């Protein structure tokens, strides 16, 4: 591998510029932190109480127990599920907003938003067992919102209704059997099915407090339960309510990479995660009054570009370009052409505040949950959405004249990408139902499906794994779907095109050419990983099998966040094995590693695999897929 830090040419160009001009970027800070703490990397550092902080010597010579007596597996397990708690909290909190908003719109209390997709609303209602006959959309919306909000707060022990309505039949049966058999074998109640999205996260925080849960299996099971409350709960609620409010994504083309920033326009980059904000900014930027205002300041117009998941949300539903994925956030500012970077929550580097000061760029925070030292705060409220969005766009326009032309360096890189593959669109491309996909899989034209998701991580060459893992998979007739920063990586690489199928194996190539789809399907943002679950459940129910019987595999080959731990866990718990790179902080707990790799396979069908080498990873995935095909008799 070359010394370049990114697989993306535009990124390398900007990194070189940053180093020349001495702008501090994420790669520099990573270098400063080396070598990182070994105890942390192995997961054997515990800071949960002040008898500590404690560490276990992974080499067996120093202390093998914390002060309370916790051994390595307890410490590693507690740390891991606290990561799940944080990740599930991020996704589920994200889902709470559109659910609340749907209720407010339904009750006529908020007119800044509307129900765009009545068809989707009815589908969601049906899934939840809500009768739609003789009810107007506002009535249905209120009932759907109430079910969603109740899943966040109910105190009974029944599983959340979204999971009941969406999870595959045999999967739900398996989870119940697991609960029963664990109770039979151990005499302790183990819960797998989430009762309440918020509660399962609270339960983790309680359990991992000093002197509560100390058994690694018990701790990890609760982590699993909370992650299911995310995947089939919070994230799913986010996706579905967002589709209802903003429209279910349809297939269309957008542009991707830093080249979408325009020299002659007011550039506003929206970064973060919540479309309740980004949708409003996109709408405000289309206001003829504001466009005129921009022109009066010497710009040809207003150019909105997305970054990270909020970028994914708006590109899935509009013709808004995406400037980059996670490691591009600083690089966008360094182009010198960004009038405003507007952020809400998650994955936003606080370093952007200082970096923006080197340019005219206004770094604007908007969320009551996310304040960044040095940022300018413009409080966003759903009640006042349109006005705040316009104010933000106007701040960007007013900043245009402050641009220093001598500092402008926009890379040319800018590729067209076919996006918008919601489950509904995939089924539509297939002709209306899953049958053609199932047939293609049965005939072996498509051997199986791999979902690639997740972040960037400066510990690995940016986008290198995302692109090369995907390219290798399609050669073996494996369809690749995915979300998040992976999807943006492929968009930037120009691979989200029907043309890309030319590099695929003959079987997959023929399917893509027949259906006019790329061999890589962009399914949305990170909460839209729920779309992958829904698709898997659809296939499983169609074939009357469990999701763990299907020829599927998942990967987060450049993961970084706690959200990724939650996503990986909910896929594993739903029967899909998940490959990870870099190494998660669990190797210090041998029993924990066994639970995640072996026990999980025996009990859930899904399991974790840690592997650095791309060829080996694809071999593992293909072997699993072929094994599943054999068991299904295809």
């Amino acid at each position, binding site marked *: 591998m070359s010394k370049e830090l990114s697989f993306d040419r535009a990124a390398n160009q900007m990194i070189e510029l940053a180093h020349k001009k001495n702008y501090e970027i994420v790669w520099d800070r990573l270098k400063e932190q080396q*070598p990182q*703490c*070994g*105890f942390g*990397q*192995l997961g054997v550092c515990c800071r949960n109480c002040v008898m500590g902080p404690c*560490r276990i010597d*992974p*080499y*067996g*010579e*120093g202390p093998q127990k914390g002060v309370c007596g916790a051994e390595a597996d307890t410490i590693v397990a507690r740390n891991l599920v606290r990561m799940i708690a944080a990740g599930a909290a991020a996704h589920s909190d994200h889902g709470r907003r559109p659910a609340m908003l749907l209720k407010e719109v339904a009750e006529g209390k908020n007119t800044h938003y509307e129900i765009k997709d009545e068809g989707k609303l009815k589908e969601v209602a049906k899934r939840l067992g809500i009768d739609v006959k003789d009810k107007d959309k506002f009535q249905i919306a209120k009932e759907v919102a109430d079910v969603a909000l109740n899943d966040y707060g109910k105190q009974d022990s029944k599983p959340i209704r979204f999971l009941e309505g969406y999870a595959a039949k045999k999967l739900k049966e398996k989870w119940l059997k697991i609960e029963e058999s664990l109770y039979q074998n151990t005499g302790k109640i183990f819960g797998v099915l989430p009762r309440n999205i918020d509660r399962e996260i609270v339960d983790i925080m309680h359990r991992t407090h000093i002197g509560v849960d100390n058994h690694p299996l018990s701790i990890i099971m609760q982590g699993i339960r909370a992650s299911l409350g995310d995947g089939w709960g919070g994230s799913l609620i986010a996706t579905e309510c967002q589709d209802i409010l903003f429209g279910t994504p349809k297939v269309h083309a957008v542009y991707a990479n830093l080249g979408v920033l325009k020299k002659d326009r007011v550039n506003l980059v929206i970064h973060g995660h919540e479309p309740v904000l980004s949708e409003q900014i996109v709408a405000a930027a289309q206001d003829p009054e504001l466009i005129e205002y921009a022109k009066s300041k010497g710009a040809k117009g207003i150019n909105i570009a997305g970054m990270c998941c909020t970028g994914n949300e708006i590109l899935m539903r509009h013709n808004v370009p995406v400037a980059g994925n996670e490691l591009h956030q600083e690089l966008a500012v360094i182009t010198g052409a960004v009038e405003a970077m507007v952020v809400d929550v998650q994955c936003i580097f606080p370093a952007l505040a200082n970096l923006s000061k080197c340019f005219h760029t206004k770094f604007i925070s908007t969320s009551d949950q996310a304040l960044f030292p040095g940022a300018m705060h413009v409080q966003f409220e759903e009640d006042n959405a349109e006005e705040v969005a316009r104010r933000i766009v106007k701040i960007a326009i007013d900043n245009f004249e402050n641009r220093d032309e001598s500092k402008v360096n926009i890379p040319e890189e800018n590729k067209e990408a076919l996006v918008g593959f919601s489950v509904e669109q995939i089924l539509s491309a297939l002709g209306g139902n899953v049958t053609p996909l199932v047939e293609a899989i049965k005939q072996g034209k498509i051997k199986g499906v791999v979902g690639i998701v997740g972040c960037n991580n400066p510990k690995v060459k940016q986008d290198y794994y995302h692109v090369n893992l995907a390219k290798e998979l399609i050669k073996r007739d494996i369809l690749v779907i995915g979300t998040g920063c992976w999807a943006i990586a492929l968009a930037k690489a120009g691979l989200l095109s029907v043309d890309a199928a030319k590099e695929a194996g003959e079987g997959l190539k023929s399917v893509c050419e027949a259906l006019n789809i790329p061999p890589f399907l962009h399914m949305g943002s990170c909460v839209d990983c729920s779309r992958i679950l829904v698709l898997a459940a659809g296939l499983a129910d169609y074939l009357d099998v469990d999701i763990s019987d299907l020829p599927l595999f998942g990967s987060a080959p450049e993961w970084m966040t706690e959200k990724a731990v939650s996503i990986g866990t909910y896929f594993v718990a739903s029967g899909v094995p998940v490959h990870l790179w870099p*190494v998660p902080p669990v*190797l*210090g707990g041998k029993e924990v590693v066994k639970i995640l790799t072996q026990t999980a396979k025996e009990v859930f069908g899904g399991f974790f695999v840690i592997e650095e080498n791309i060829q080996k990873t694809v071999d593992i995935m293909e072997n699993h897929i072929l094994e599943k095909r054999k068991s299904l008799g295809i």
Partner: protein
Amino acid sequence: MKELFVNFDKCLGCLSCEIACRVEHSLTKNIFTSIFESKPPRKRVFVQFYQNKNIPLQCRNCDDSPCIKVCPTGAMHKDERNVTICDEEKCIGCFMCVLACPFGVISADRKKVIKCDRCPDRETPACVEACPTKALTFEEVKEFSAEKRELAASKVI
């Protein structure tokens, strides 16, 4: 010639030096794989806790080393860098060097001696590179003393 120095005030007791030493002296030189090696790598530097203070201790690379003087087989010797190291092949595990070392920084792996070798494969010893507060440094005596004089001078003012 560079020596290994310690700024005791800066030591936080994080033990990053001990882990880095082990990883450097493992077969695979990778934290994740080193914990699975059949012979767990041993540390050659120590963080002693004494009267509520963290005291990193390591081989001082003495000239006319007591450990070399008492070694009956010549296993303990100075290499081409003038660093005191122990030749495992010649070592008979009599541990006279352990008795002789005034700092207690020579240890044993079964019947062979293990001691700091100033990381012959690196420009800067692993422990020094790993220290997050730069409590450990690898520099010439005159550089270290100059820094100390600077500090002393500032205290006079």
